[in-house]
C-alpha cells in the first residue's frame, strides 16, 4: 500500500492506495504515529483508492483510532469504496468511525 501525507486546513490527511491487509497494516500504524509525533491528532484517511481490506486492515484502523483517541484526536474515514464499506458494516465497525463521502467534507467536520 502507498500512503501519502498532506495537511489540509490544519488537518492531517493520509491518502491510502492499494490493499489494507496484514502486509500493510503496520505501515498505516507507523504513519499515524508519525503524525502524532508532529502533534497532529485530527486525522482523515482518504480511502478512495483502497480496493481491498481484510480483518487485519480493520484491526489497524481500530488500533489507530485508539492511539489517537488517547491524544484526544480522532480518525475519520472518507471516500470508502462500496466493498470496503460493506466490510465495515458487516463487522459493525462503521459504528465507531465517522465516515464521510469525501475527504474535504471529512476535513471540514473537524
Amino acid at each position: 500500500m502507498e500512503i501519502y501525507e498532506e495537511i489540509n486546513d490544519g488537518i492531517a490527511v493520509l491518502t491510502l492506495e492499494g490493499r489494507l491487509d496484514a502486509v500493510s497494516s503496520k505501515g498505516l500504524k507507523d504513519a499515524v504515529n508519525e503524525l502524532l509525533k508532529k502533534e497532529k491528532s485530527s486525522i482523515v484517511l482518504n480511502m478512495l483508492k483502497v480496493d481491498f481490506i481484510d480483518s487485519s486492515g480493520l484491526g489497524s484502523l481500530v488500533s489507530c483510532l485508539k492511539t489517537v483517541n488517547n491524544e484526544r484526536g480522532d480518525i475519520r474515514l472518507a471516500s470508502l469504496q462500496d466493498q470496503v464499506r460493506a466490510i465495515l458494516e458487516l463487522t459493525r465497525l462503521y459504528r465507531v468511525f465517522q465516515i464521510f463521502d469525501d475527504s474535504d467534507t471529512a476535513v471540514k467536520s473537524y
Partner: protein
Amino acid sequence: MKKIKFIIKSDLENVALAGMSINKLCSLTTMDDSQSFQMELCAVEAINNSIIHAYNNEITNDVEIYLEIADKYFQLDICDRGKTMDKDILERADINLLKDNFDNPEEISESGRGLAVIKDVMDKVTYKSVNGINRLTMIKYI
C-alpha cells in the same frame, strides 16, 4: 467443473497473489463485484490464519489453496500442515457475538474477526485435520 490449485510459501507477501487470482476467477461465475470481493476476503482471512496461527509466521511452509468452480457452487479449501486449530473456535465464531462495546473504542478488539466473517459470508464452512493436513473448506452456493 473447473479446478485450479494454488500453492504459496507461508509469507504474508504472497497472500494477495492468491486473493487477487480468486477474485478474478469469480468473474467466471454469476457473482458480482461485491461477491467476488467477499470470496477474496474469505480466502485471504483463511490463508492469513494458516500463516499466522498454524505456521506461527514461519515463511518456509506451504499453504495450498484448492479452488473449484461448478455451476451451483464455488468452493475454496485452504490447507496447511501446521498447528491444528481447536474445532470449537470455528464453531463459536459468530459475527453477531463479537463482543465489541461500540460506545467505548478502548474496548473494541483489534483482531478476532476473521472466522466470524468467513462464516457470515460463506454458506458452509468446515475444518478437518487428517494425517497432519489441516483443511478449512468454504462453500458458497451460486
